[in-house]
């Protein structure tokens, strides 16, 4: 049963329609056939019996005289006449019984079959029912009619009606019925075939087209939908199948349009990717694996695309630490709409020297992966030029300080030289060098050598080129380092240096030697401004403090001050009030650039004759963020 139901489920729509309608038809036909057969059989049988009764009655009437006269030969001939008359196809036998149920005459050619006598042909009232008996292998309806004389029954006439007659009729009927049924079946087959064709063919076609669409062939499917039978275009009347094919048509149309739009926009972005002047990397957000690079990236970094894909971006480039760790942002929480902008020190294949690139990155989906689109600008040249400029200005500052530094270096050398001359003189004179003298010379020489090398180290550090990466900088340390180089000279110039440093000053992200350059420059500016005026009490006050998450550096002098009309120009490059040869006018411009580079701010307060204050603010750095 289950097998059948499964088989049915698996069958095609056409077969389902055909078999189910056929089953209903057959069931109905079967019931009708049974019913018809029953009615027919009953009516035929009663008709037959009625006829039999009539025949038997008329024979009984005819044979009454012969029975009374006991004229057996006439009786027999009468029976044979009836038996072989026009009803011979119907009548199997006729016999007449006498009063005592003895056989008076019969139409059997041989001996009278006893089985008839065994069948109880009469009931006790003498009413003769019609019964079905079997005589010599033939089914026969035995019908009896009494032969009466007055009120007495003097015998009975029995005739046997062949059942075969009814069977023949029934068989004929069955044949006709089966023939009719076959014709109906064929008709049904044809109708269901037609119907299923009408319903299932478009469905089969739609299925085929769907498969085609899923293979991406939209154009081919469009034309075939149009060819589906009964389709009157996108609108119009029609049955469910037509509506289905129509809506399918509309759907593919829509799909085609949106696919075209998609392809167009994809082409647009692809061409931006391919022909854009800036290198673009597509990276996996979690692993930083390079998923794709554009031709500009190949060109700029000398990459071979095939060899580069699959490698890790972090093997080539190191993200510079800004206020937050870029890698953390990339791999974990990416704020909505945030565009990551940072510098990367990049080790491309082309050269062993690192390139400096500035990147902008935003997250995207790429081949179902969480990706990062990273566009880069090679800023190596810019960084180098800027570095060169700062270096130049630093060297210029150093040049200005050269005389002072020379004096500074001369001091320890002088002490050492004197100590040495003392020892030489004592040796030449043949005098014994006293122990305390020797000890003093030894300790002074060692101390003065340390002092000289300290100055040289500080100079070297100051003159060193800045590293690309920002570092955590303590401004207080920078101030102390600068004062160590020029403090002595300021005191020789009778300038008092007042330090008001905040001991809990937060760090900032900057470069140590650039910050020293800024402080150095501002202090030398102050010194120059102080030299101009005649004043007994001259000082430079350097103050650090923090407020509102900013680190503030204040350098205040008691110098000449800046005239109001020049205030706007002081940060302009090449603006200087100094004599030719004394300054390039780049100092403040470069300071401004450096401070801005650290997202800082610099403002000036000045009053002529009273002094000038430079106030710089930098964002405090919080490493735990």
């Amino acid at each position, binding site marked *: 049963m289950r097998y059948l139901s499964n088989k049915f489920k698996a069958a095609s729509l056409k077969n389902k329609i055909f078999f189910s309608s056929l089953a209903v038809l057959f069931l109905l036909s079967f019931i009708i056939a049974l019913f018809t057969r029953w009615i027919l059989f009953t009516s035929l049988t009663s008709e037959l019996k009625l006829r039999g009764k009539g025949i038997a009655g008329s024979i009984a009437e005819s044979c009454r005289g012969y029975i009374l006269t006991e004229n057996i030969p006439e009786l027999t001939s009468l029976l044979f006449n009836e038996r072989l008359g026009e009803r011979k196809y119907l009548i199997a036998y006729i016999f007449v019984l006498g009063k005592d149920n003895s056989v008076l005459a019969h139409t059997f050619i041989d001996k009278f079959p006893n089985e008839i006598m065994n069948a109880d042909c009469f009931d006790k009232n003498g009413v003769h029912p019609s019964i079905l008996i079997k005589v010599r292998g033939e089914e026969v309806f035995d019908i009896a009619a009494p032969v009466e004389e007055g009120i007495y029954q003097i015998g009975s006439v029995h005739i046997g009606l062949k059942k075969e007659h009814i069977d023949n009729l029934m068989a004929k009927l069955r044949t006709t019925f089966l023939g009719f049924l076959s014709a109906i079946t064929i008709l049904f087959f044809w109708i269901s075939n037609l119907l299923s064709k009408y319903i299932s063919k478009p469905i089969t076609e739609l299925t085929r087209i769907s498969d085609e669409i899923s293979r991406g062939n939209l154009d081919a499917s469009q034309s075939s939908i149009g060819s589906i039978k009964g389709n009157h275009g996108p609108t119009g009347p029609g049955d469910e199948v037509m509506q289905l094919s129509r809506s399918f048509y509309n759907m593919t149309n829509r799909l085609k349009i949106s696919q075209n739009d998609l392809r167009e926009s994809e082409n647009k972005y692809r061409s931006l990717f391919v022909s854009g002047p800036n290198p673009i990397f597509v990276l996996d957000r979690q692993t930083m694996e390079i998923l794709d690079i554009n031709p500009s990236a190949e060109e700029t970094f000398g990459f071979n695309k095939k060899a580069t894909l699959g490698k890790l971006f972090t093997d080539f480039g190191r993200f510079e630490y800004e206020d937050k760790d870029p890698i953390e942002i990339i791999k974990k929480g990416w704020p909505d709409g945030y565009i990551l902008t940072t510098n990367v020190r990049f080790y491309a294949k082309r050269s062993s020297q690192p390139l400096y690139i500035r990147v902008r990155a935003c997250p995207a989906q790429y081949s179902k992966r969480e990706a990062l689109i990273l566009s880069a600008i090679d800023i190596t040249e810019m960084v180098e030029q800027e570095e060169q400029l700062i270096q130049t200005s630093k060297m210029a500052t150093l040049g200005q300080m050269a005389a002072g530094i020379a004096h500074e270096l001369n001091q320890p050398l002088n002490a050492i030289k004197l100590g040495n001359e003392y020892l030489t003189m004592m040796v030449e004179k043949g005098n014994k060098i006293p122990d305390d003298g020797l000890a003093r*010379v030894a300790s002074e020489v060692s101390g003065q050598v340390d002092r000289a090398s300290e100055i040289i180290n500080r100079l070297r550090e100051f003159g060193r080129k800045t590293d690309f990466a920002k570092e955590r900088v303590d401004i207080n340390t920078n101030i102390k380092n600068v004062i160590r180089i020029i403090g002595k000279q300021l005191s020789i110039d009778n300038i008092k240096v007042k330090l008001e440093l905040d001991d809990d000053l937060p760090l900032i992200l900057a470069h140590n030697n650039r910050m020293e350059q800024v402080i150095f420059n501002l202090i030398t500016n102050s010194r120059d401004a102080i030299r101009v005026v005649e004043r007994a009490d001259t000082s430079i006050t350097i103050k650090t403090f923090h407020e509102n998450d900013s680190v503030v550096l204040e350098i205040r002098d008691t110098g000449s001050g800046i005239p109001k009309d020049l205030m706007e120009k002081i940060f302009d490059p090449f603006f200087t009030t100094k004599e030719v040869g004394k300054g390039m006018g780049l100092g403040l411009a470069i300071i401004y650039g450096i401070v801005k580079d650290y997202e800082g701010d610099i403002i000036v307060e000045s009053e002529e004759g009273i002094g000038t204050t430079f106030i710089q603010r930098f964002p405090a750095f919080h490493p735990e963020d």
Partner: protein
Amino acid sequence: MKKILVIDDEKPTLSMFGLFLGAMDFDVAIAENGATGIELFKKERPDIVLTDIKMPGMDGLEVLKKLKEIDPSVPVVVVTGHGDTALEQEALSLNAAGFIHKPIEREEIESVLSRV
């Protein structure tokens, strides 16, 4: 034994001057700045004064001027760095007795001191 006063803001230099000039048979007095130097001069009346020129507070030229005011005949030798010609001109005009250049050579100091 001649008495000599050395004025210099550099302690190590002063210390070495003390040893060196002591070995040259001078009676050495030292002062760390101009003001102390002048006080000491008034008190000790040395035969020769050696003064550094670049000093915080009162510098060498001022010291020279003051000493000449107190005693115009006292020989004052000025210690300078190499190349400070402008300062030397000024010192000469203030009647400096001579110059010694840092770093100090024995021959130079001996010849200058022998002249004064």
